[in-house]
């Protein structure tokens, strides 16, 4: 263990939204938790799941966010900010991060393990995730 063990026992993120703007907080919070030596467990479900497959749909911003998109994209480009995917992947390489696909959504969408992106660790049910994230702080995105 390189870093001192800290009080917070972990961060559980339920990634439900597939709207493009919501992937940024997912990535930033995950990488920050890793930097603070906090384990992260991510449960990908709802409309977010297609973005965790090998065949990702085009990013779609929510209606109320559309006006901000040009400024946001310009600012991110100027800052040479990595994509949410790159930030999340780097976080996984650096720390204790597990990404799980919801088995119900996977079934509904006809997705098998081989269809999912390599950053996804496994397909699991809600009971497994609740057990994994016991005593963790939960964030719903």
């Amino acid at each position: 263990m390189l870093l001192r063990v800290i009080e917070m026992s972990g961060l559980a993120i339920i990634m439900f939204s597939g709207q493009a703007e919501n992937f940024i907080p997912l990535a930033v919070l995950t990488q920050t938790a890793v930097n603070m030596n906090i384990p992260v467990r991510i449960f990908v479900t709802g409309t977010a799941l297609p973005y965790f497959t090998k065949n990702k749909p085009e990013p779609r911003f929510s209606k109320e966010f559309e006006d901000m998109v040009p400024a946001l994209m310009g600012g991110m480009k100027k800052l040479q900010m990595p994509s949410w995917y790159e930030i999340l992947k780097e976080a996984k390489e650096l720390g204790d991060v597990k990404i799980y696909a919801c088995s119900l959504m996977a079934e509904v969408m006809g997705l098998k393990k081989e269809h999912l992106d390599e950053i996804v660790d496994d397909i699991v049910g809600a009971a497994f995730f609740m057990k994994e994230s016991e005593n963790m702080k939960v964030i719903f995105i």
Partner: protein
Amino acid sequence: MSEKHLVDARGMSCPGPITKLVKTYRTAKNGDIIEVLATDPGFIPDVKAWIEKTGNELLELKEEAGVIRAVIKITAKK
């Protein structure tokens, strides 16, 4: 022998500077000094929080001409 490491995170946005610091921290040892240069406006409170969480020592933290400079002494590695 203690070493000095320079982390140049100028131009990087949150959480980039802390991530870059952590990557260097992992290769460093107790007694080493890490100097971080950053321009992200959140870096001052962020590096303070990181120091508090990890228990390392902050020797210097100041902003000059838009560049934040943090000097950290590594003391908390196990």
